[in-house]
């Protein structure tokens, strides 16, 4: 091993898109490999957990961990990498705010297991077998990770030093983060490594956004022909731009699709879903309660819309089952 700084990549509850975004550095990854030693990267390189365990505590300069934490194995790896690393970087929307997996926090663990192993139409499981954390057969013992009761963001499990937002982060932001890491020019700990400004400010359609939206109803993007030049909010589409951090270079907008909020909020906002709810709903035109309800009903799934990537990291975190609901 050379004296180059050590970097680790790991994935938890994620889709693999974050790993893909590292590969999307294309030839840029050669510069990174020239400057650092990648000591752990299960998706691309043949290292085992034992290799990490033999490293001295704090000997990895930075671990980039993507994915939410929802099993005991993911929790264990996050804790191990935290112990071995000087810096832990939450990489991507799931590690940052829970991401799409965080939407599972609308359900109890038992509901999720029953759906996956019994009720799903494509499931054939007459004996209703469920995964067991420990099973013994012919004298051999097999173990499986335990599914946690809820999905967690990385920083709800271990201390996190920096956040790289996005689903996935752009190769450009990753490249800038690695450069800053190696040059020692990272901002104060706790920072999100992307511009601290709402996406609307960077949107190519900014000039067509009216001051007063006066929304009559919300339209679904797959059912509506969209003008490729005009502000999507002005066209009645739910666009998360006002409550979402910029830095993605408005890639979805440039593809004529609304922002769905993957970069999370700016530093001034604690709860992204509450903030976009506030912004969108106060801009509808209706003035009486029935008319307001009619307009709001055109958003059929408010939690899934406003908290698409941030439910696990939100103020409420998970659906509660108060005592009155249990009775």
């Amino acid at each position, binding site marked *: 091993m050379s004296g180059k700084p050590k970097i680790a990549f790991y994935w938890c509850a994620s889709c693999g898109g974050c790993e893909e975004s590292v590969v999307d550095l294309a030839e840029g990854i050669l510069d990174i490999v020239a400057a650092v030693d990648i000591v752990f990267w299960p998706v691309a390189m043949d290292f085992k*957990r034992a290799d990490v*365990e033999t490293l001295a*505590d704090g000997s990895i300069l930075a671990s980039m961990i993507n994915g939410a934490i929802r099993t*005991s*194995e993911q*929790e*264990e790896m996050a*804790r*191990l990498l935290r*112990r071995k690393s000087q810096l832990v970087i939450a990489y991507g929307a799931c590690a940052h705010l829970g991401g799409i997996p965080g939407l599972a926090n*609308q359900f109890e663990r038992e509901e999720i297991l029953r759906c996956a192993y019994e009720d799903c139409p494509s499931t054939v499981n007459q004996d209703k077998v469920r995964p067991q*954390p*420990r099973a013994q057969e012919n004298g051999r013992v097999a*173990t*499986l*990770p*335990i599914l*946690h*009761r*809820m999905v967690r963001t990385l920083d709800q*499990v271990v201390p996190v030093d920096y956040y790289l937002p996005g689903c996935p982060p752009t190769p450009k932001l990753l490249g800038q983060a690695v450069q800053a890491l190696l040059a020692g020019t990272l901002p104060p700990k706790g920072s999100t490594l992307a511009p601290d400004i709402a996406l609307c400010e960077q949107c190519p359609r900014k000039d067509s956004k009216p001051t007063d939206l006066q929304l009559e109803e919300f339209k679904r993007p797959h059912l509506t022909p969209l003008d490729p030049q005009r502000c999507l909010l002005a066209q009645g589409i739910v666009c998360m731009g006002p409550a979402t951090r910029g830095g993605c270079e408005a890639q979805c907008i440039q593809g004529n699709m609304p922002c769905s909020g993957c970069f999370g909020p700016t530093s001034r*906002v*604690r*709860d992204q*879903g*509450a*903030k976009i*709810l*506030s912004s969108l*709903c*106060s801009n*509808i035109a*209706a*003035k009486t*309660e029935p008319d*307001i*309800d009619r307009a*709001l009903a055109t*958003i059929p799934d*408010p*939690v899934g819309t*406003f908290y698409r990537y941030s439910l696990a990291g*939100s*103020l*409420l*975190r*998970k*659906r*509660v*089952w*108060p*005592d*009155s*609901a249990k009775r």
Partner: protein
Amino acid sequence: MGGERVNTQAKGSPDTAPADAWEPRIVAFFCNWCTYTAADLAGVSRMRHAPNVRIIRVMCSGRVDPQFILDAFAKGADGVLIGGCHIGDCHYVEGNYKTIRRVQMLRRVLHDMGIEDDRFRLEWISASEGEKVKLVINDMVTRIRALGPLGLPQHVRDWDAELESLEHAVTADAKEVGTHVG
């Protein structure tokens, strides 16, 4: 707001107090021009209402960011009450229209997140309606008393109990990890 589930007047720490020591705690956001003035009127008129409400004066019910409401629940409130001027009477003309539009959507979010409808309430109370302040607060306290504590901070502690075993295992000795048993 320390001591979840327990009235600040109750004796004992939150963890040792008996369950029947619980008193509903309601956070109320009252607009400066109408409902706060009405609460003042109720006070000077020596009306008695349940002491379970902590009133926060805001300039307009439209100033109540939905984050304030979620944060109140997350920090241990059993209910949140918003009081504003009647529709048409807003000191800022349009503020309470924004309030009701946000509130109608927030109700659906809270419902979907398992928080019962009676824990969140919006009332239009003008400056002269001191009696209505009393009636609304007493009614809300009765309903929330019937529901029992929401206790979100306690829920979070219960959820996070599953993290304790690995925290100790991995922090104590890296060689012990690998059992996957949570």
